[in-house]
């Protein structure tokens, strides 16, 4: 096993670890969806506004998970550690 192989293997492990970042947005989006469901239950007339607000908030909350995904993709395909 050469040094390059070791770097590639560790990059793959690092990419997998970076995807653990998906836990946070999952919890956050679920919480937002639960709160939105409660809000619709309390005030069914405002369903449209609540849904669009929830989707906007969830998309913003998703950003940190996507940073993890970007790190994983860069580690796997750009291979910055081999340069």
């Amino acid at each position: 096993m050469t040094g390059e192989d070791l770097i590639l293997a560790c990059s793959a492990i690092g990419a997998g670890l970076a995807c653990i970042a998906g836990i946070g947005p999952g919890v956050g989006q679920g919480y937002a969806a639960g709160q939105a469901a409660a809000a619709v239950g309390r005030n069914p007339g405002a369903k449209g506004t609540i849904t669009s607000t929830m989707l906007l908030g969830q998309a913003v909350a998703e950003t940190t998970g996507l940073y993890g995904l970007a790190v994983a993709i860069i580690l796997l395909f750009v291979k910055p550690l081999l340069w």
Partner: protein
Amino acid sequence: MFIFAEGDTSYMIKLLYKLGYKLFGSDVYLTTTHVAMIITTVVLLGFFIAANIAIKRALKQDTVTKPGGFLNVVELIVEKLDGISSEGMGSHANKFRNYIGTLFIFILFNNICGIFGLRAPTADYGVTLCLGLITFFLIHYNGIKKNKAGHFTALFKPLPFLFPINVISEVATPLSLSLRLFGNVMSGTVMLGLWYGLMPVVFRFGIPAALHCYFDLFSGAIQAYVFCMLTMVYIEDKIAD
């Protein structure tokens, strides 16, 4: 050993044709992004020209008649797009109506390219970064136009030594906007590429339809809406009275 690895996975940007010149010391290629984007732009242009002709013809009539099929669809689309901008900006919506509507329809069509077998252009960071930079310049152009020098002194606002943090948060705006769009579309592209590349042939029919519905249609529409909404929120933040 590789029972499942039948085809090859193809979700990266392909270099199609080498153009004859160099930019910053590297070769310039025509890629799948360019081709897909040209196709969506031509389709959209055809639709816009047809809609323009239909509207002009309807305006020329002397008597008021009820709109026909195509004109009805065009009116519905325009109303929905205007609804997005007036929902996000309130009284300032009139100035940004055209830009937001165009942006939404452009990002939406680029996101749902995957259904038609093209590689979505928004899964290329070069495209989304440009969209984010357009938003960045719009934010600061409108901020300077509204607040003149106050736009820059606002960076020192709560406390003077917070200046670096304020600058970082301004620079992070286009980055987070573009990374959000890129990450969502790219994750869908990678997922479908893996499915088509690694699954046995039996699973490549029927089942991907559900994946396409979620990753291309649902996620694409949501992300286009969110991009427009956040652009409006950031601009509104600068030009609010």
